[in-house]
């Protein structure tokens, strides 16, 4: 086997050094009746060449969004990832390094995390951010737990227009704790009524911008309401590119921002790994879950970085930890940091403007088709179409024509008959004019 250096002779010599007669002797502690004599019922080792062929065969059974016009969003967005980002994260020193618990030989990872935290804080308009979470949905759940700890209250009010996966993950995460959620129903028009729901036992209200249907909302007034009632406002961001164009959650008065960072630097990869963002106010930092990187100095007085405030974490605090989370999304957060560094202020704003202009262009084209209307009064790069027929069926028809038309709302909200004809459509910088034309033409055909 190419991955293991020992020859048969070396194994014999090493066994002799150890003072045992055979490899089996090393496994003598395993109860005899459970020891496996034969090999597992699995294929034998394969050459690299064959392994590559196996995966090419699997890949060929999928329709790649790279080779099909693609308008899918709903929490995961196709963006161009600069080759530099993917190159750097494949460098041995980033790819094959451990968690930076030994800061003297991990300054590369640590400085990048510090830069990540700063970028996330800047774009969300918050004071501080952690070194990343698993993904946006788990980050949302952790934000709610954190709000409960901060306020010492037990209830979270969840907007009906929060991404259903985020709602479900939050509910699942809280179900066996002392905390609970109040889930509102989705609303396609108008504003949700939070006022009556912000009772004194409410720890936080959770809203999303752009919301699941793509609409942009100003939550400034809601933030004030929350703060008056001693509750926190948690703002979720699915599509971080929107922050290049719109008012940040921080400016609206958010206390915690939970976001999905996939759009910056991270490939779609059929849903993971992604990178969860979590940002908040400095004063809440000791209630924050996940890793934090902080600045300090070394013995020589040189600036350096370390993982810090680890007394919040499970390997010190055990059952009293702020969270059971141990890993972060290290390499994905690095890709995020590199992509964001390449964009900079100018590029991030331009990318957002480009995405918006793409979506507006597509919306205008689609609105001209008879029988189709757009639900949204506002949107960033994704909006909700009301079709004259079942959206899931139309998506299937278009898929058979090689077009990935969007996400039928019913896939995520299956029990709501009002949603059956709704289609979420996203347009990013990756959509060409011919992609849009192909989509519009094909859609008109299948209606």
């Amino acid at each position, binding site marked *: 086997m190419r*991955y293991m250096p020992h020859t048969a002779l070396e194994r014999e010599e090493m066994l002799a050094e150890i003072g045992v007669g055979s490899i089996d002797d090393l496994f003598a502690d395993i109860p005899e009746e459970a020891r*496996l004599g034969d090999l597992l019922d699995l294929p034998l080792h394969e050459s690299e060449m064959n392994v590559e062929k196996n995966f090419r065969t699997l890949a060929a059974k*999928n329709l790649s969004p790279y080779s099909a016009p693609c308008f899918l969003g709903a929490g995961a967005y196709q963006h161009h990832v600069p080759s530099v980002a993917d190159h750097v994260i494949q460098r041995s020193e980033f790819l094959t390094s451990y968690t930076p618990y030994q800061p003297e030989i991990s300054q590369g990872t640590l400085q990048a995390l510090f830069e990540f*935290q700063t970028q996330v804080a800047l774009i969300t308009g918050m004071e501080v951010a952690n070194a990343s979470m698993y993904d946006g949905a788990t980050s949302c759940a952790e934000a709610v737990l954190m709000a409960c700890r901060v306020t010492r209250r037990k209830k979270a009010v969840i907007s009906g227009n929060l991404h259903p996966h985020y709602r479900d993950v939050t509910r699942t995460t809280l179900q066996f704790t002392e905390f609970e959620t109040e889930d509102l129903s989705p609303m396609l028009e108008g504003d949700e009524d939070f006022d009556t729901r912000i009772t004194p036992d409410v720890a936080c209200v959770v809203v999303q911008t752009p919301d699941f249907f793509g609409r942009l909302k100003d939550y400034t007034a809601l933030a004030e309401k929350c703060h008056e009632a001693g509750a926190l406002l948690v703002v979720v961001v699915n599509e971080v590119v929107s922050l290049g164009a719109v008012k940040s959650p921080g400016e609206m008065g958010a206390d915690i921002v939970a976001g999905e960072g996939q759009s910056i630097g991270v490939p779609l990869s059929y849903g993971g790994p992604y990178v969860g963002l979590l940002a908040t106010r400095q004063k809440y930092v000791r209630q924050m879950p996940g890793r934090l990187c902080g600045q300090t100095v070394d013995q020589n007085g040189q600036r350096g970085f370390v993982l810090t405030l680890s007394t919040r974490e499970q390997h010190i605090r055990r059952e009293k930890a702020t969270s059971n989370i141990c890993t972060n*999304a290290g390499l994905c957060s690095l890709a995020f940091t590199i992509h964001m560094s390449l*964009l*900079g202020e100018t590029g991030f704003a331009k990318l957002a403007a480009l995405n918006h202009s793409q979506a507006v262009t597509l919306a205008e084209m689609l609105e001209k088709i008879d029988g189709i209307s757009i639900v949204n009064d506002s949107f960033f790069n994704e909006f909700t179409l009301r079709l004259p027929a079942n959206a899931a069926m139309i998506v299937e028809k278009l898929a058979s024509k090689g077009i990935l038309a969007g996400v039928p709302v019913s896939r995520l909200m299956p029990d709501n008959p009002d949603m059956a004809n709704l289609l979420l459509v996203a347009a990013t910088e990756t959509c060409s004019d011919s992609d849009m034309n192909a989509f519009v033409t094909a859609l008109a055909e299948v209606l």
Partner: protein
Amino acid sequence: LESPLIFEQGMPGRIGVDMADPRPVKVRLGGLERKGPIGLPDLSEPQVLRHFVRLSRQNYAIDAGFYPLGSCTMKHNPRINEKVARLAGLGDLHPLQPTSTVQGALELIDDLAHWLKTITGMPAVAMSPAAGAHGELCGVMAIRAAHEANGESRTRILVPESAHGTNPATAALCGYKVEAVPARKDGRMDLEAFAEKLGPDVAGVMLTNPNTCGLFETDVKKIADMVHEVGGYFYCDGANLNAILGRVRPGDLGVDAMHINLHKTFSTPHGGGGPGAGPVVLSDALAPFAPIPYVVHNDSGFDLVEQAEGQAQKSFGRMKGFHGQMGMFIRALAYMQSHGADGLRQIAENAVLNANYVRVGLNDKLHSPFDGICMHEALFDDSTLKGTGVTTLDLAKAMIDEGYHPMTMYFPLVVHGAMLIEPTESESRQTLDEFIGAMRHLLDRAAAGDTDYFLGAPHYAPRRRLDETAAARNPVLRYTPPAPTEGEETAFSAAS
């Protein structure tokens, strides 16, 4: 060749990503256009590339050297895994494509599930957990859901003292009271103490096996029987699965749930701290409570169950957006296929062989708190350092100067000044010999009273020892840019 913070290198107006100019369109942002600048620095591509290449060179990595890091299983990360994860048609799939357009992806997940079930001898596996700790959460939630489905409200989970910190943290998140079970003198869980703590209010036990002392829990089947007898479940922390691949199947030991760290056992890259992936194998008793989504077979091919209803009505819910860490699944499956049944068994054999080789190579210089053969990692305490003024930490920092990553220190907590060394199967004997030689040299130097050398270590790293106390006392968690100039123009300018 150091690099200042990226924020200290910007110059407004540079660009690192070219893109088309936005079409002039009627803005539909609902009046929420951003007003002020964000404060991000502008750089060109060569600057960004050089910055991160320079940063990388401040890092240690497996590709550059040996990581004898107990319990973390830092082993060779094959490059073919990175390559196949990036294939068009795999790396670029959207998670919400119609399932008819992702049959290959679903087949891949199903394949990986088959390998994991076969390796562990378990009937079911939940694929979506994002990391080991997330997998623990999945397993304990399934346990609690199963008890609740039976109308039982049990309150306690038993956890050995030597457990990873995530075990008690997870149990607490599921609303359980955690009770620690002490270890015996031989480093295994104390069965008598365990029996005493067992009772009808015990939801289950969380046991790492091989345990964090690097030892196989010889009474594991008895433990399983005992917890089952009181109606509890056996959660096995699978962090150390590497040591027993192909030699024993957890399913044959009475395990009800076990997470598998794909980044440890199946070598998806650690990446400086993630992303991981933590699928959880489940017994028949717990399988109905598995989280959504999962892949199923039907006549027209593969499909996904994405809602907790119908056949998934007992599911305890959803743990993560979309379907799990697909990118890690690809790498892990490539790793498994590369090894095959024969290679998997050899992984365990060579990992255990290497750990014992290090153990005997050092055990006249360092004290092993527990006698005899170890599994994949060798545990030592700091008793031979006593009186030298050199601590486990100092020794670890001196290892850096010798070209090694330090071993795991002060864990497990049951051993004083613990040093936990896991060489893994991908290291050669030559590397182990050099490592043993370097360690012996350091231990001799400590014994000879050269304390100052150790207190000053590392001497040759990119940084000397960092002031962690200062970092925690006054946390500086971000760069703070100079205040923006008054009256700067709106950064958003797509509007026509």
